[in-house]
């Protein structure tokens, strides 16, 4: 490995659904093309036979050493600097904590944890370990969104007072955990990154419109932030649409209203639009959001600084999601504790 290249252990090959494997679908390809990383090992999640079988298959396919006998052994490998964690959700937090305690930097698939309490456990260990713990909230690195974050922070629209967001995916396999748990982190993270204002109050509606199962496939979040900013976020998975690739974003946009202007962010751009006999499609060139997420991982590790987003950001998002669940059931707004000011 050349100077500055970080060795990566791929730990876990599961997600919030039977066919969700962001490790192989998203992170592995991105690590593969990134100059700053080299995948050096794979390991399955302890106690999960299917996951371990996936690790064995992948190690064989990539010509990596056979997966270590247990997690401690895998984490003891000095060639490993970074652990990319896609352990099944119920085992994810323990896997991340083990990696942090072993002194490794961690990239965690979203959601980092299923509850705020679990996320807080991770954040506490991350704060102690001093290593990087980066939750994979990669949509904030979208070129339209990243530019918008700069514009808002630079005062382009004055003091923001409202954000409207839509994050509607079309087709793909519904998450058995519900799309609130599955998708909310993305647009909520973007709204927090755009405004820099924590959420104080959550009102939510959870519905099931497109899937037969009991899990929610549509969520509306009405958030009240510090300084009175309000935001409204729709999150959902509709049926498939001809012009959207399966599990692709059918509508992904943000509108920021400020004291001196309005900023419209359409995250389906930039795009070259292709129209042919079949449904139209879009394409663009350059680094994707996951590539840019890895840029941040590399930069944080190299500089010895916490990543942005951090584990603490994931805790706040998990609090919002927890509150949304409570509000969805009670039909009333839920106030968040405001004793976390220091964790920003």
């Amino acid at each position, binding site marked *: 490995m050349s100077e500055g290249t970080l060795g990566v252990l791929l730990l876990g090959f599961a997600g919030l659904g039977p066919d969700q494997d962001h490790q192989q679908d998203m992170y592995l390809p991105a690590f593969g093309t990134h100059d700053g990383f080299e995948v050096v090992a794979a390991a399955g999640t302890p106690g999960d036979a299917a996951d371990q079988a996936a690790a064995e298959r992948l190690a064989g396919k990539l010509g990596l050493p056979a997966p270590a006998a247990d997690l401690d052994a895998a984490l003891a490998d000095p060639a490993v600097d970074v652990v990319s964690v896609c352990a099944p959700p119920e085992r994810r937090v323990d896997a991340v904590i083990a990696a942090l305690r072993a002194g490794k930097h961690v990239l965690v698939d979203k959601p980092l944890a299923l509850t705020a309490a679990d996320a807080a456990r991770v954040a506490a260990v991350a704060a102690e370990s001093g290593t990087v713990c980066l939750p994979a909230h990669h949509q904030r690195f979208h070129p339209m969104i990243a530019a918008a974050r700069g514009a808002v922070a630079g005062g382009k629209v004055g003091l923001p007072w409202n954000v409207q967001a839509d994050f509607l995916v079309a087709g793909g396999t519904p998450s058995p955990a519900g799309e609130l748990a599955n998708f909310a982190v993305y647009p909520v993270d973007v709204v927090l990154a755009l405004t820099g204002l924590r959420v104080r109050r959550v009102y939510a*509606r959870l519905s099931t419109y497109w899937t037969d199962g009991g899990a929610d496939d549509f969520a509306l979040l*009405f958030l009240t932030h510090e300084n009175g900013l309000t935001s409204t976020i729709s999150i*959902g998975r509709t049926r498939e649409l001809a012009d959207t690739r399966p599990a692709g974003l059918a509508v992904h946009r943000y509108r920021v209203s400020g004291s001196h202007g309005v900023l419209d962010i359409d995250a389906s751009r930039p795009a070259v639009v292709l129209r042919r006999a079949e449904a139209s499609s879009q394409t663009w060139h350059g680094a994707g959001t996951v590539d840019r997420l890895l840029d941040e991982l590399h930069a944080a590790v190299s500089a010895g600084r916490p990543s942005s987003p951090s584990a603490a950001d994931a805790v706040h998002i998990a609090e919002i999601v927890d509150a949304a669940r409570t509000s969805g059931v009670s039909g009333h707004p839920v106030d968040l504790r405001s004793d976390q000011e220091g964790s920003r």
Partner: protein
Amino acid sequence: MARHSVIDGTAPLGVVIVGAGFIADHHGAALRASSRARLAGIVDVDAGRASAAATAAGGVPWTTDLAAALARPDVGAAIVCTPNVTHEPIALQIAAAGKHLLMEKPLTITAPSARAVVDAFDAAGTVVMAAHTHRFYDYARAVDDAIAGGAVGRPVFARLALLGGWIWPDWRAWVLDPAKSGGHALHNGVHLLDLVSWWLRDEPVSVYARGRAQTAAELRIHDYLEMHVEYARGADAVCEMSRGHRPSTLDRRDVLIAGTEGVLQLPADGWGSTVVTESGTSLLHPQAANGFAVQLDAWLDAIADPRAERAMTPADAVRAVALGVATELSIERGEPVTLDEVMEGVRR
């Protein structure tokens, strides 16, 4: 739509306009363009305004006395364009006189009074319609046509935003006084609340709303409103009504409907031509039907055949008022408010 033709000999309906302010001009223009109705006079408490409007309309009679105007045998109906708080007494007076009414929105500013007005017209056997003009604009009809045609299956989520900057005059404007306007939810919010309810073909059950005094902290109305409506069959609507955006030239209509079978969008920048000039960029609206003329025709249709299906029913008007009231209450409380609470003791 049955249009009057010159040969069938029916005299056009004589209509007085009550309240000769800003919006009265639009109704006057629609009347001028109609062969089925004619402007028979102007009523305004302000003699100067009444006479000026009457002169501008080619010398039609004017008066400050509504009763006198309603007593004229050649007056069959009224279009009322007065401040919202006056709607209830004026409507009851028109019902008692046995005339038809096109009432500017909101029908009234409380749910019981809206119901009372509708009951009064039922008793009189004349027609009352509230002027929820957006229902008669091309964009709203295009959305409704698509939904009616099954384009999105069952609509389950509607987003509607009408965003603009300051349009009101100064602190003396009655619109800024909640006692006179009912608040912004009743003044303008009702446009959106009515439209999404019409589109979704469902009955609202509760409202969660947030409001903001954006242009000035001293405002006693919310110039920005964010209103969530939950419907009986489970659909959701998010409506934003703003007069608090900057720049004040902002003119934004945004529609997104997600249904069980598809997604429908009127993109914010997708319904006009962009004009870029030395003084900036603006939107050139496409040629469109005059919503006030289409609305006038719908009202005249209802008068011609009160049993025919109506473009806007009295119950729709009451519902819009109830939604506006629920919005104002929800903002005050920071909690969702049910329509049942607002309609307590009021027949739907």
